[in-house]
């Protein structure tokens, strides 16, 4: 897949699908491998969203091609993993790219503005700040 000369703007990706946003959200906390992402999403949503490998990697495939996520090489993995002894060579670790982070931020802002709108129309309780 050829790299694009001019990276697209973060806004051009919006709105994100729920799965993609969950993955970006998970990776914003640090570099993770596939199963970690699944666990992170499940834990954060208290099991309401459960991600399986098929969907996850299909989405990761797209994220990698779009340049929102990149795969860590082995050296980075060792440095990145909290417990260096635990690095499994067969695993792939993923990290957000700069573009990926800005897409996640843009999506979060979009959602936030929608939440704000919802509060202003009294759909949600809480201060409409």
């Amino acid at each position, binding site marked *: 897949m050829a790299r694009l000369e001019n990276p697209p703007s973060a806004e051009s990706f919006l709105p994100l699908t729920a799965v993609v946003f969950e993955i970006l959200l998970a990776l914003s906390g640090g570099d993770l491998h596939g199963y970690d992402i699944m666990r992170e999403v499940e834990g954060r949503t208290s099991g309401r969203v459960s991600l399986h490998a098929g969907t996850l*990697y299909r989405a990761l495939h*797209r994220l990698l091609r779009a340049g929102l996520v990149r795969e860590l090489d082995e050296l980075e993995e060792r440095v990145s993993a909290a417990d260096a002894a635990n690095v499994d060579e067969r695993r792939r670790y993923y990290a957000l790219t700069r573009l990926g982070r800005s897409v996640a931020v843009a999506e979060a802002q979009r959602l936030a503005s929608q939440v704000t709108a919802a509060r202003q129309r009294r759909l949600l309780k809480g201060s409409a700040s």
Partner: protein
Amino acid sequence: MTPRLEASRGSTALERCYGLCLALYPPAFRRRFGDTMRLAFRDQYRAARQRGALASVKVAAAAFADVIVSGILERLSRDAGDLLPASNESAPLPARRFNGRFTGDLRTAARRLRHEPAFTAVVVATLALGIGATTTIFSVVEGVLLRPLPYREPNQLLTIMQWSRSKGIEEQPSPANFLDWRNRARLIDLAAAEPYSLDLTGVGDPAALDTWRVSERYFETLGVAPMLGRTFRPEEHVQGRHAVVILSHGLWRTRFGSDPGIVGRMLMLDGEPFQVVGVMPAGIDFLWRKHIWAPKVFRDYERRSRSQTYYRVIGRLKTGVTLAQARDELASISDQLGIEYPRTNKDVGIAAVPLFERMTRSVRPILFLMLGAVGCVLAIACANAANLLLARSGARQSEMAVRTALGASRRDLVRLTLAESLLLTTAAAIAGVLISKWAIALVVRLAPADIPRLDEVGLHLRVVACAVAIAAITALVCGVMPALPFWSPSIERSLRSAARSTGTGSRLRAALVAGQTGLAVVLLVASGLLIRSFGALLNVDLGYRVDHRAALTAHVWDLYPQPERRGQFFADVEARIAQQPGVLAVGSASALPLSHEGSEMDPPFTVAGRPEPPPGEAPTALVTFVTPGYFNAIGMRLVRGRLLTERDLPASPVVVINETMAKRIWPGEEPIGQRITSSLSFAGLATREVVGVVGDVRQEGLQDRPQPAYYVPHRQVPFGSMTIVARTAGDASTGVSSVERGVWAVNPRVAFAGVETLDGLLRDTLAPRRFTLTLLSSFSIAALMLASIGLYGLMSFSVGQRTMEIGIRMALGADVPSVLALVMRQGLAVALGGMAAGLLAALVLTRYLTSMLFGVTATDPLTFAGLTVTMALVSAVACYLPARRAARVDPLNAMRVE
């Protein structure tokens, strides 16, 4: 094995299945993410297992569904369109449009199926059952009947037998006949193998190795090359240079630890050094399974022997020669020999049958029966799935009508239903293949040993392709049928009648249910007939007892070359065994009933005082050499006269005959005191006096009528291959060790060729029937269940559709019994129609079962009636449940529905 290891092994099986699903993804994707996806699945599954069995099943099911759906989606969408529309420019336009639209359909279909988990699960499970069963049986049929033999040009290979014209049976060839055939045949290469036994010592426990002594160029004729070393050289078929052997792959692996340096090693066989010159590859020795091959050296007496028939002869057609030409040549050779040796060969023809045909002849009907049965199950499963889809589409007609009104074309609707079917059948195909992976192992374990090449049966590419083809056809059938009601041209009409079932749809569904019921009846009747046959066989009077009896075979020809010492040896051994604790009786015979081994002889005999019959027309009887204790040890019954005793010395030859022989040779006469003359191998011509009559024994098989037979005292003809039977107070296995101890106390160098219990022998005899029966019964029970589920589904649906009508009837005064009757009548009409068709079909089809039946006719009225009643009862229950629901309808609510 530690539990931990076991646990990890369990999950790897599931992981492998998961890996199998990854085949759905495009190769590039699979290469990139396959391993890590498997790892993620493994971690997730293991974590779920910590939370309990239910959680792990849930997670595994969700993960499999997920991987299948996203695999299909990934393969269908060639772009990264979700995120980056710009990257999609390269795909050609029509393909993109199709992909896009069909991917959309798939997504819609997946969503809809997810919202109806019960429906999805039932359809997938039904189809998976059908596909799994079909794949399993097809695997066995493929492995046994369709795969070519592992020999060079296997179609050129023949087995050659002697054909007894007067008896109309095939016999193994004799050595002199084989040699003459080989020397005279020009169109066919012949080679022979002689069954033999060599005792191996010096490598672990002494063991009697089943051996073939093979003629020159045996392996070349067969068309196999050794895996290690070489085959025999021509000069090795000469006395003095013959001490070489070739090992089977199995023996090489188990006895010699797959030693790659085995060639050249010396082995002690029958106390003499033999050099190993080669090892054969695995999978070639299914033909007359043996452990070891040695070169055959023909002795002078063998070159003259035409009456002893025990060789196995194979032939290979020379290039360009047809089977008919070879048969013609063999026929003229047998005619010549008949003229040259009228006394022995006048009656002997030559039967040449292609090797493959002979190997599979006995199992072919069983396997084809299974294939037919499993085809019925698949048809029922498909009908059931189609029915469920139809019922659902009927219920969703208003949705479809709305879609049509909003601009969806009929083609769109068909595509949507096809997409659903594709998802369902893909899932079912994968589940079916997984089921069949497990079921094949089960079938192989259950199957009787005489099905050739069973160990090679496995899930092969061809079989998987077959499952995929079945799934594709099913997808087409199930996909198109539900869409049929929408081929009607008027949207308005379908909108108006949306809530009611359409006539075509319900008639089609009723026909499907009737068809299922019919097929189920056919299967039930077939398995019912087999069950009755099996019961009849179990009730056959064997003429002896099988419980608490162990049987060990020893060949002592080489240990005791002199006949008198052989006689003494078995007498000593029996005395020792009788002293062992727990042994109640002991005796020996040259051949046991139902063992199909040992030395079975049925030479002709003449009766003293009667004129000598013309050659070839003298009566024959089965001869067994027995020690005096044998009758008691095996539990045979004395009818008249006396049994054999230790005092029956060689000077006064006697025999004990069976009842059939008494009736057939001396009808209405007193057999005791009569004399017969026969020539027995190792004993020559002798006249023997009948001293007793014993009950008949099923010697050959349970369903064969007893043949004339007589028993000769071992002391008078000291045969060297005897099976010792010990009756024990306790378990038969204690008898085995008692016999071993007793024999080894007399001579520790004796190796046992066969160790069995008599009930084990009986079990082996029944194994092919039990196998057929088990499979066919499981298929027919599955068919019964599927058909009744189909009927239940049809009636539930119909009751649902007619709620308002029933409500009105009840409001107008119909009572509960009349509503029950209304619904039951409708359902039973469908079921009875199907059953009538099924009974007719069964009447026609069960004729093909005749060869497998025993003690019951193919149109046994009891079986037909009993199973029809069963089917009717099950159908009645399947109708009653929805009918009861209908009768509880509250008229007010019912009429409010619309």
